[in-house]
């Protein structure tokens, strides 16, 4: 009875031990430390006058998210290298992937610290009336965008790194993925009018900003879509990413995982549709000219 109990507990204990080690490895990784330092440095300057800290979401998204892609791809590679060097290991690749997934708590916590600063800065240096929020755009809406584009981006980047580490374990794959991610993000951030409505399928996009109108190139606009549903969509995407990374393990049955992936994928599609069709369905224009 006791032996059975111990055997049943062993995988959990192994996962907990590995997770603790991976959390520490993430915390000590130079790329995380540099990214976190750059994010902190960006908080030392007074935020934009028209949008306050709401326009500073790019700092944690790049400093924790993009750097996180590199960190997680590197941790995954080194985890595999350690397993290969050890020969036959009792810990499966799936358990190691799950342990790496647990390390996501580090960028999430760092993102939350940034979010706390952003909320404080938003109230300490309120945005000018020419900026956002304005009209029907509430403070809660602004907080939701900050959470989505700051905290969830800080987690989303490392999830992409985990997927790359598992499915494309080639040198150069992670930095090239970083550049591709930047390219996709800029294209889908709402600058290009034909893409504005469907931009929410992308993992990072603006909701408010100085997108401009005819005659006032910096006029503040609030684009279509719901930041609340968009947040749910991003959480579903992150879950999908972790499950997809776990799917790489060919030694265990993948039926359950495939079923879970299908369900999470379907949920993500539903949330994405709700994000696109929810919230304001017309671009809102700040009645005040930008003055720039």
């Amino acid at each position, binding site marked *: 009875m006791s032996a059975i109990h111990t055997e049943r507990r062993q995988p959990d204990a192994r996962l907990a031990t590995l997770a603790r080690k991976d959390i520490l490895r993430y915390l000590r990784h*130079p790329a995380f430390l540099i*990214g976190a330092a750059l994010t902190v440095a960006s908080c030392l300057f007074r935020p934009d006058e028209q949008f306050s800290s709401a326009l500073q979401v*790019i700092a944690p998204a790049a400093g924790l998210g993009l750097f996180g*892609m*590199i960190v997680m791809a590197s941790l995954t590679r080194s985890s595999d290298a350690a397993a290969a060097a050890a020969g036959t290991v009792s810990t499966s690749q799936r358990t190691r992937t799950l342990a790496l997934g647990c390390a996501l708590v580090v960028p999430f916590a760092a993102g939350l610290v940034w979010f706390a600063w952003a909320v404080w800065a938003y109230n300490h240096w309120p945005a000018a009336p020419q900026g956002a929020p304005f009209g029907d755009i509430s403070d809660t809406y602004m907080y939701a965008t900050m959470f989505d584009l700051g905290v969830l981006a800080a987690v989303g980047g490392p999830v992409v790194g985990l997927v790359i580490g598992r499915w494309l374990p080639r040198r150069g794959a992670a930095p090239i993925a970083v550049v591709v991610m930047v*390219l996709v993000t800029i294209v889908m951030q709402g*600058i*290009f009018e034909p893409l504005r409505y469907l931009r929410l399928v992308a993992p990072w996009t603006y909701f408010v900003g100085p997108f401009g109108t005819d005659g006032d190139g910096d006029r503040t606009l609030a684009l279509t879509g719901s930041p609340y549903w968009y947040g749910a969509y991003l959480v579903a995407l992150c879950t999908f990413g972790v499950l997809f990374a776990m799917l790489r393990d060919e030694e265990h049955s993948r039926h359950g995982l495939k079923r879970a992936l299908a369900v999470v994928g379907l949920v993500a599609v539903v949330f994405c549709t709700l994000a696109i069709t929810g919230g304001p369905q017309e671009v809102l224009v700040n009645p005040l000219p930008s003055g720039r």
Partner: protein
Amino acid sequence: MLRYAFRAVPWWRLAAATGLVLVLMEVVRRWPWTMWPLQGCAVGVVAAATLWCFDEPSADIVDVTPRPLAWRTAARASGVLLVALAWGATVLLARSSLFDHASDVALQGFAALLAAASFATWRRAGGTAVPARASAALVVVVAAFCGLVRPGFDLLPLFPYADGSGNAGDWATSRVLWASLAGVAVVGLMTALADVRWWRWGGSQM
């Protein structure tokens, strides 16, 4: 030397990186006002591609062969030449969209290339087999961060744009920064290569 370069340089990775630089700068050429952060990313990719040229996965074997590091560095520089040519060509093609600062943009890429070559050679001289393993990804993501977030752009205008007024960064300061980096990199490169020769001579005299 050519045969060594053919086998030692990761040409496929270099081809992917130079292709990416071409794509990034072409996008910047088409939409300079909106896609300018990609110019910083392109500089980062140039530096990373240069770093990859100097990786020596078989250092344990190669480092004890009669060929000195200076010879191997010269052979591997053929890969760097490809990157430099690609960068020069893309800047030339995109010059009409670079806000009359094509020479400054070119300088950024060449300075990054020199700095990366200097760093990699210095690390190789110090015994590190694959200097790009830890640094190539980091340099790309740092360049992407600086291009996107532009932290402290008034003090450290790494990637200015437009006419450099307001919050666009100052081209003159940027020029000084990149030229200084290039100068330091050249000195570093010479020192690293010279170091190895002294070490070799010391070794042969023993």
